[in-house]
């Protein structure tokens, strides 16, 4: 794995990334499942070799079996198959925590406090009051962990080694944060909105997971305090009874079990803002800047980069030569909306547009499909590439960064026709 290189997308690179075991399996021709002979867990090809020894398909209470990466704090990723549906089922939605003391929050006892030195009138709401005091809205939006696909980083970087599945798409129902803040009165000096949830560290010397967003993002009509997900209360492991939806931005800001919203005149300077969840300044073509947290070297991660995923095919899968098939997938971005998905079946030499499916809004997964008839026996290298409405597209070479964020390298899946 350490001999990996960045020579662009080709078959050799995929084999190198997948490791020697997978390479042997590929040459022998069997499926991905065989390539992972030491494990029945559907790991993403290219993740670290050591992951296979600890990853398990296991169900948390209220969840279907997901790919367990770590027990405590619980980090469970969604298997690929669930992304064939545009909305990710609640019981298959990925789970991600930093801190391991995760209380079972009671809906009756839960309170949301609005405070900080930049609000005129601090307030406190119970769940019923929150639901009845403000207009309820619905929004379909992708929640994607900043570190989704970290496990595919070349070279590998330390952290939770996510494959494709640290993300999900849901129809969220809640109230706009801007409405809640308006009722408390936001002073003109307000700079950031600090967010805290109910989970706490094991030892009190670990920094509590408090995050902040700029006031302008907090006042965006698509930033929502959600209490429903796909028509049901939030699952415990996805933030019951309420979490923040910061549409377009990565999951780090989507505070689960949210209890405190503090509007402040100062920038939050804790570990989770000053040291974690940052990318090198200028490294990514991002539109949204979190100016109060930016410096010359690094800047907070903000909106998701445009990306896509093939959902019904896997590397090494056998297909029939001459028989039409449909490659299915999804595409998403930071909220500009998907303009185009192109598919290549010849290692990127030529590209044709895929057919875009149901449009559930610009923050949603956009399903797509592509009809393909393998013209001859042998390996067909299938690739998919999405472009959004501001013209941003995926990269062919990893835009490496130390935390393994924003991996939107064009995916390549070898289909073996016989």
């Amino acid at each position, binding site marked *: *794995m*350490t001999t990996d290189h960045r020579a662009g997308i080709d078959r050799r690179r995929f084999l190198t990334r997948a490791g020697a075991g997978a390479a042997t399996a590929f040459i022998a021709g069997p499926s991905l499942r065989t390539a992972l002979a030491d494990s029945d867990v559907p790991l993403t090809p290219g993740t*670290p070799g050591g992951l296979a020894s600890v990853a398990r398909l296991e169900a948390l209470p209220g969840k279907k079996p997901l790919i367990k990466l770590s027990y*405590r704090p619980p980090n469970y990723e969604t298997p690929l198959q669930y992304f064939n549906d545009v909305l990710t089922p609640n019981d298959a939605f990925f789970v991600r925590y930093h801190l*391991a003391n995760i209380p079972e929050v009671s809906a009756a006892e839960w309170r949301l406090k609005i405070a900080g030195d930049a609000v005129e009138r601090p307030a406190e709401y119970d769940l019923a009051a929150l639901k009845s005091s403000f207009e309820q809205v619905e929004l379909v939006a992708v929640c994607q962990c900043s570190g989704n696909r970290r496990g595919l980083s070349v070279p590998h970087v*330390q952290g939770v*080694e996510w494959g494709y599945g640290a993300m999900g798409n849901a129809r969220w129902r809640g109230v706009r944060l801007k409405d809640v803040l308006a009722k408390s009165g936001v002073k003109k000096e307000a700079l950031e909105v600090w967010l805290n949830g109910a989970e706490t560290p094991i*030892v009190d010397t*670990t920094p509590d997971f408090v995050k902040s967003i700029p006031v302008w993002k907090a006042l965006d009509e698509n930033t929502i305090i959600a209490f429903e997900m796909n028509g049901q209360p939030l699952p415990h492991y996805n933030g019951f009874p309420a979490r923040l939806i910061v549409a377009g931005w990565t999951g780090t800001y989507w505070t689960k079990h949210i209890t405190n919203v503090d509007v402040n005149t100062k920038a939050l300077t804790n570990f989770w803002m000053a040291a974690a969840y940052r990318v090198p300044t200028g490294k990514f073509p991002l539109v949204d800047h979190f100016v109060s947290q930016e410096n010359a070297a690094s800047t907070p991660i903000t909106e998701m980069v445009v990306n896509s995923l093939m959902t019904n095919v896997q590397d090494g899968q056998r297909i029939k030569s001459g028989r039409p098939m449909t490659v299915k997938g999804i595409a998403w971005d930071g909220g500009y909306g998907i303009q185009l998905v192109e598919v290549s079946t010849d290692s990127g030499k030529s590209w044709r547009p895929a057919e875009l499916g149901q449009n559930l809004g610009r923050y949603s997964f956009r399903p797509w499909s592509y009809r393909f008839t393998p013209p001859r026996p042998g390996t067909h290298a299938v690739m998919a590439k999405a472009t959004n409405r501001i013209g941003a597209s995926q990269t062919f070479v990893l835009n490496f960064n130390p935390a393994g964020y924003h991996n939107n390298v064009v995916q390549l899946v070898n289909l073996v026709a016989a």
Partner: protein
Amino acid sequence: MKAYHFAVLAVLIVSPAAAQDEHVALKDGPGKDAVEVHCSVCHSLDYIPMNSKFLDRAKWDATIKKMSGPYGGGIAPEDAKQILNYLAANYAS
């Protein structure tokens, strides 16, 4: 260490099922005890094989320092050295 013991106890009381179910078998070797005692206070031990084998000794050292410092683990230098030697011998590139 006093704080650690209290924390471990608290975890057992709060979620006995999780504590029982999270068994992760690490490789045997000198320093394994130190790893199990210190690292498992805050997280299950699957984090270690998951992050292998691609970190060299220097990167494991940096990881231990991060866990001890910014993450608040407060690992004593002699314990950190045992942990590093174990990780370098068993889970380094």
